[in-house]
């Protein structure tokens, strides 16, 4: 810290552009949070409420050993609900967004793996899941991957610029307010 008198505002001005972001950015992040949050909560809830189906959906990927399909079938949807709720609340926003991004990477990897192995399954992304008739849906995997990439993009945006309107994080810290 220099003893010479600094100009009155530039430091704060810098903070405002780098940390606070523009009002527009905050609204964009808010929108991204809400969209991703709703998607995760709905997708998770549909699976939580049909646990047997969720387990079959996991089994259909033929990736995990038998002993893990039940814990993952029950647990992964709960994780989605949790991350989705945190995003909706804007609580721990950056880390919730990172978690959402990791989930999307896992989902994309799963679908790519299934596609590469020529399995015909319902991804079980929004409930349902399991094997499907073998000739209905070759192009569906591509659509699902693109969709998850869009969600991954939203998650990345939020993680990079986590300050947003209507968030618990914002109410907790003066820097995040407004």
């Amino acid at each position, binding site marked *: *810290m220099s*003893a*010479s*008198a600094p100009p009155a505002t530039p430091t704060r001005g810098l903070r405002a552009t780098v940390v606070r972001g523009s009002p527009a950015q905050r609204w964009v992040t808010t929108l991204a949070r809400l969209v991703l949050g709703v998607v995760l909560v709905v997708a998770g809830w549909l699976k*939580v*409420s*049909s*646990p*047997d*189906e969720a*387990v*079959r*959906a996991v*089994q*259909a990927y*033929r990736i995990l050993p*038998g002993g893990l*399909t039940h814990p993952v079938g*029950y647990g992964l*949807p*709960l994780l989605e*609900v*949790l991350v989705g*709720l*945190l995003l909706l*609340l804007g*609580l*721990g926003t950056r880390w919730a967004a990172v978690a959402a991004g990791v989930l999307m990477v896992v989902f994309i990897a799963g679908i790519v793996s299934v596609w590469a192995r*020529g*399995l*015909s*399954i*319902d991804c079980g992304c929004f409930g349902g*899941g*399991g*094997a*499907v*008739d*073998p*000739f209905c849906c070759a192009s569906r995997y591509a659509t699902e991957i693109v969709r998850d990439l869009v969600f991954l993009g939203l998650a990345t945006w939020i993680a990079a610029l986590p300050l947003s309107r209507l968030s*618990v*994080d914002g109410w*907790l*810290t*003066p*820097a995040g307010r407004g």
Partner: protein
Amino acid sequence: MATRPKETRAQSRERLREERARQAAAEQRRATIMRVGLVGIVVLAVAVAGFLVVHSRSSQAVTSGATPTGVTATKGYPFGSVSKPVLDIWEDFQCPNCGGFEAANKTKIEDLVSSGKAQVVYHTWNFLDSENTNNPQSTQQSSSRAAMAAACAWDQGKFLEMHDQIFANQPAVEGTGWTDDRLEQLAKDAGVPDTSAFDTCLSSRTYAGFVSQVAAQADHQQITGTPTFLVDGQIVDVSSASGWPQVGDLVVAAVDKAAGSS
């Protein structure tokens, strides 16, 4: 500190800034603690609610009870005079794809049995019961009740006939299901000789436990949908097919291959 000399303006401004920074840091810490605490509360709430929902909605079916003679949940309903190769067919009576497969390939499968080329084993799974959850009570759990009806027909030597009748009379809209009365009518059409014994067998849910055992076996074997075909325990890959007749051809080819190599 107590004898601090008079501050210059710059020093006092500096001190004020440091004080502000300390306050901001303290506030930041408080906010972090609050945030961690709130996240903890949300995690706990989701975990508890999730456990309760999963616990109440996952299958806790009774798996004890009578088993049709000569049948086990593991081994299914066997047909044919040979012991190898074994073609396992996993179906749910409510599954439209199974209906599609049966309509296109019934004769091919019958030929495997009658020619002594393979042992064909049917497994009647009930995983599509959830399709009728919101139906009137009389048609709820149609997969399970149809599977029980097939077991009751087995007792009178008419499993395959009943199996074919049910698939041929699937409702136009998946999930509509069947009433018990409808299943009794189908049993009559299938030529079940003692219809009153059949009706008693079905209405008393004689094979409810057995049907649940089959579902547990499906879970154990990680069968994830219907129809699923296994030849000597290996799932037949039918993903290259472009229609149900080709699926049947691929299944028969897999049987031929296994028969040739054994």
